[in-house]
């Protein structure tokens, strides 16, 4: 397969960026999207040029490091999939690809298509935890948890913190990310105790970081690689 790639190149957060066009040929259909970019970077090294910088790590859809907006879609069009788990066989029809960073004021571009998502860490620091210290825990089975509650908590806890929900939202709201953590802990007796304070503190931090508010576009839910439901946002709002 052959592709024409228009890739966002930007030197740093202070300079303006632009699309640069590259050609990659003879790509095997079982090649992953990021492996295709690896091959482009190998070509750039051969030519003596600076490589395209992008975030990646586990390449199995769980670490949340990879990002990219591909032809207008965060993590590409494929449902419930991160960029690292896209394969070029999905792109038989689209041989011209536009590759951009996640765009949001609170995720400034560091270089090329790589952004700074530290704001998410600071939101977790504002309250995304149970205030338990090491060594103080009672026996794990001393507090029973209804299976449905545990399963629902897991569904929220599965968030990988990639930020696609922010990138797709017209308001650049982080509501899905924030509410997933709030809901995860609210649904368990261990987390319930601090729920109100946690929700207020995390939402306040989200606003301080410059993320917008939710106005029910529901694009976040559609784009989320972990299929986290916007019902989490309803729960968050009820706690705030």
């Amino acid at each position, binding site marked *: 397969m052959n592709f024409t790639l228009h890739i966002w190149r930007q030197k740093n957060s202070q300079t303006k960026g632009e699309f640069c066009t590259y050609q990659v040929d003879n790509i095997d259909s079982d090649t*992953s999207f990021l492996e295709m970019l690896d091959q482009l970077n190998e070509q750039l090294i051969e030519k003596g040029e600076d490589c395209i910088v992008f975030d990646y790590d586990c390449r199995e859809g769980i670490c949340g490091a990879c990002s990219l907006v591909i032809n207008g879609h965060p993590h590409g069009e494929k449902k419930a999939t991160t960029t690292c788990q896209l394969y070029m066989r999905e792109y038989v029809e689209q041989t011209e690809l536009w590759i951009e960073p996640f765009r949001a004021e609170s995720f400034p571009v560091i270089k090329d298509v790589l952004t700074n998502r530290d704001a998410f860490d600071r939101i977790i620091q504002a309250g995304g935890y149970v205030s338990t210290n090491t060594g103080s825990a*009672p026996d794990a089975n001393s507090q029973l948890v209804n299976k449905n509650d545990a399963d629902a908590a897991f569904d929220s806890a599965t968030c990988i913190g990639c930020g696609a929900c922010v990138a797709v939202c017209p308001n650049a709201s982080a509501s899905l990310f924030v509410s997933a953590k709030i809901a995860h802990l609210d649904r368990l007796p261990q987390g319930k105790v601090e729920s109100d304070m946690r929700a207020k503190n995390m939402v306040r931090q989200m606003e301080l970081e410059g993320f917008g508010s939710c106005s029910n576009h529901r694009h976040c839910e559609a784009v989320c690689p972990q299929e986290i439901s916007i019902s989490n946002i309803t729960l968050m709002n009820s706690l705030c």
Partner: protein
Amino acid sequence: MHKLNSKTPTGDIEKRWDKHLFDLSLIAPQNRAKYNIIVIGTGLAGASLCATLGESGYNVQSFCFNDSPRRAHSIAAQGGINASKNYQNDGDSTHRLFYDTMKGGDFRARESNVYRLAQLSGNIIDQAVSQGVPFAREYSGYLANRSFGGAQVSRTFYARGQTGQQLLLGAYSAMSKEVASGKVKHHSRSEMQEVIIVDGKARGIVVRDLVSGKISAHTADCVVMCTGGYSNAFYLSTNAKGCNTSATWRAHKKGAFFANPSFTQIHPTCIPPTGENQSKLTLMSESLRNDGRIWAPKKIEDCTKDPREIVEEDRDYFLERMYPAFANLVPRDVASRAVKSICDEGRGIGTEINGEKLGVYLDFSSIIECIGEDKVRAKYGNLFDMYERISGENPYQLPMKIYPAPHYTMGGLWVDYNLMTTINGLFAAGEANFSEHGANRLGASALMQGLADGYFIAPRTVANYLAKNKLEPVDLNHPNVIQAIDDTKERINKLMNAPEPKHSPDYYHKKVGRILWGACGMSREREALKSAIEEIKALQIDFWQNVKVTGVENDMNQTLERAGRVADFIELGHLMCRDALEREESCGCHARLEYLASDGEAKRDDENFAYVAAWEYSQKGTILNKEQLNFEFVKPSVRDYT
């Protein structure tokens, strides 16, 4: 030869850790704020350690190369975490978990350490549940367990196929609490370059800011490395792309002994590679072996057929045939070697690469028939989805294709019972150290060890070190600090300006990976190892002469990051082969073809090789030190899984 002192306590094994805890010196709460500790890496060991030290009142500086602590590769662990809670009343106990771990490791681990790990396993589950880790539960509300990786008891706790993610997020949230309290100062996108040693003690590190390229020194009272394993030496592995040996290797070159580097675990159930440009391999959780049946066609001519067209009598369920008692649940090393032998016979299936078909089937049709697709989906849904995303095939209809891949490294920095390396004040925790798994790690034991080290062991032993040593602050202008910065800059300069730049870092990484996979992978043999050692030496010279790094050093430059890591993998690869050559026996993962029983099982030589190989770096040639292993509480037996 250096005299290795493991500082292992004596007496009843059940009481050793308690006795040791009492003997360790304490620091009073009001004095803890006077101490500074550096923690490198934020996986399970690092994040749990940062949280615990912060809660106790110490000042912690933490560093990771990712953009957030939550990205550490612990996040990808799927299957579960062991604990000898005996909630299922099936005869589990601390002693049984201890024994199973010793036996699984083929009697190449230290008894005292392994017993302590088993003792602490239950506390880890308590801690995680209190943090809100959503483990699987029964309808009764009690925690669910499953049997995992050949264990004959159900002691594995799990959170669907994302146990590592949930445990890491638990540790990360606990760490975040301490970042908020100000006790932990965290630095993301920061890679350790050198350890700073003053008066024989680790007193800091040199770090490269991966965004600006700026080099800076950070000093403290001691340093803990929680930097994970080195499976990426093989290039293709199940590890995240960024996982590397650089922190441990550079510590090794400053005096930390590297133990058992050839003890690398090959995981039997990974998705086979499909082409030359593949960048990593993905593991399919071992839990799938509980219900999936592994087979290959009996006849070579069937290997290209649709598997559904191969009738039952033409299928070879080879693990069931070879190991009737444990069948599909034999330990990882045994299963991996069996799969390899089938493919070596020419009975592999799947994409042909370089004239070989490397794959066998993992088939769920029996269990789907037995309990129905819905129940199978409830158990393994996310794993099946993941397989389909990667392979493009539906495992509910077609059997999965699997092949072994490098996954975990039992080897690592040598540590004593206090998790301290041979450099005073330099500790290593989690996969970065060699400790508990001997020559082979059991499934669901990596998460257990990382968290035992981080939550319960290192916080106590680090405090003891600080209490016992009088440490004056180290000035940033100290000559050893300046020297470490200069060494770092010189090294980067060399990488940026090779005399005849020709090939990318990945080119060299693939080369060293191929050499290691061939000579130091699932089976090892004297002559192959000897020639691999020579090849790696030549590759090292080639690398420093011809590596091509584009861009500049004082900017974000992932090519430069990779080049630095590959340079270290090449040197480590050399030592892996030397270690494998030196160990003239087979044990656990280490299958020396010259020392295998006729059924393919490892033939240990306890008389001559019941030791930990601890390698001491020297520019004149690395020296082998031996820590003899004594077995007082378990009798080394022949691992027999037939």
